């Protein structure tokens, strides 16, 4: 993946148009029906944005992470679920681009297919029985059979857009006798898998991500296993890129909540020109809160891009892991705070679901942030790392 500071204006403009013209008009229905944002994803496919991060030599746009981050922000402003589906897909692509290794023809070919067919990739990282720790797996890759195939069966409590993905990046133990933390990541196509749905999907927010549980089984060849250990994939790419792209979506949601509060205050000021407007003061306070979120999210993106382009080994250092863990915690707490305080500006008009100033969906969507890898778990990790890391 290219993480130069280059922002591809053409791709961002295409995404902004999709956000405004496709994601926004469907956002209420996607939320109400807890349905997949099919229109937005179809439009992203049409603009070939699903392969934005794929290197040029494999036919992709070779876009920078900053470009993709901006697209996540733009989509998040109009439909949180569309933004999150796009963000999560790009995370799997980034993992493959960064860690396919030299001369791994299977992954090179698959990335070409992502370009040509605009494949949508989900992940199966969480698992029943691990206590929410992505660094451990119960499920294991089997030994290679006489037919040349391996297999796994994994019980996943949630698989975001599982019913709609073309392929899945799944963490499993390297072998049947491997320790829980000795993991690899396997990319398997839907036609190599059986997905048995578990439970229903009727959550508070991010309803369009359609993330019910599944028992996933797959048959795959050994070249479908990313060559790098998952611990490396996680430290250098999956964890920091997840935290960066998720927080861009949350920033988008919070920014739109702020914009709606601002539109509300402007409308009130027009109705009563010259009269004191308490809501305007609260709006100004809200801007400070939004600025804190924007600063944290923007700074972390730049830091990651610098490290990725320069001293990539530093991404594995505990002090760096702490930094990107903190991004997730801070952004996931600040985004719902902004949405809640936007509600404080708009009052009942924002609380109602059918006004131009409604922020209920924003608040509900933003409240999912602290659960996407529970903040309590990240705090527990950070508490341990803080005992030994020096400069943080």
């Amino acid at each position: 993946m290219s993480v130069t500071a280059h922002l591809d204006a053409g791709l961002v403009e295409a995404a902004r148009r999709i956000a405004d013209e496709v994601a926004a008009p469907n956002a209420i229905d996607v939320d109400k029906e807890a349905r997949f944002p099919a229109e937005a994803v179809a439009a992203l496919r049409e603009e070939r944005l699903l392969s934005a991060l794929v290197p040029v030599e494999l036919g992709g746009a070779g876009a920078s992470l900053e470009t993709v981050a901006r697209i996540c922000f733009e989509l998040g402003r109009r439909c949180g679920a569309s933004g999150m589906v796009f963000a999560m897909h790009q995370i799997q692509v980034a993992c493959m681009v960064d860690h396919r290794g030299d001369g791994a023809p299977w992954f090179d070919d698959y990335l070409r297919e992502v370009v040509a067919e605009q494949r949508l990739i989900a992940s199966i990282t969480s698992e029943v029985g691990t206590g929410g720790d992505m660094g451990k797996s119960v499920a294991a890759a089997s030994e290679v059979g006489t037919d040349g195939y391996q297999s796994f069966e994994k019980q996943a409590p949630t698989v975001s857009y599982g019913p709609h993905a073309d392929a899945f990046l799944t963490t499993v133990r390297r072998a049947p006798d491997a320790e829980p933390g000795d993991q690899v990541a396997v990319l398997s196509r839907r036609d190599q898998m059986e997905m048995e749905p578990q439970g229903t999907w009727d959550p508070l927010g991010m309803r369009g991500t359609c993330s019910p549980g599944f028992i996933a089984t797959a048959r795959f060849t050994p070249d479908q296993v990313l060559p790098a250990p998952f611990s490396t994939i996680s430290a250098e790419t999956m964890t920091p890129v997840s935290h960066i792209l998720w927080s861009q979506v949350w920033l988008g949601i919070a920014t739109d909540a702020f914009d709606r509060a601002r539109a509300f205050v402007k409308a009130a000021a027009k109705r009563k020109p010259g009269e004191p407007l308490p809501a305007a003061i609260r709006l100004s306070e809200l801007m400070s809160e939004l600025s804190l979120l924007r600063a944290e999210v923007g700074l972390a993106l730049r830091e990651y891009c610098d490290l990725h382009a320069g001293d990539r080994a530093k991404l594995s250092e505990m002090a760096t892991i702490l930094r990107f863990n903190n991004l997730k915690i801070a952004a996931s707490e600040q985004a719902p705070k902004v949405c809640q305080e936007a509600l404080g500006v708009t009052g009942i008009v924002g609380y109602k679901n059918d006004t131009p100033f409604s922020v209920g969906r924003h608040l509900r969507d933003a409240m999912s942030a602290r659960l996407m890898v529970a903040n309590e778990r990240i705090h527990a990790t950070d508490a341990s790392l803080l005992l030994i890391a020096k400069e943080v």
Partner: protein
Amino acid sequence: MKEQIRQVIREHGHLSVDPGTLADDADLYQAGMTSHASVNVMIALEDTFDIEFLDSMLKRSVFESVDSIAQALTEVGVEA
């Protein structure tokens, strides 16, 4: 030095096997050391050898074997 390293791993690494049975280059994470246990190993190593690891050393790969730990200790001035 390697015997002292093994003793620290024995006390704090929570491996599924005794570190005495592992080769110097055996992967401690594959032997069951968790990330959390590895932090306790790092703290105990700093205490045992009266040194401080640099941030650039505080990463998974540096603590993955007795050999790699010994090399890190040498870098911060512990004599073999």
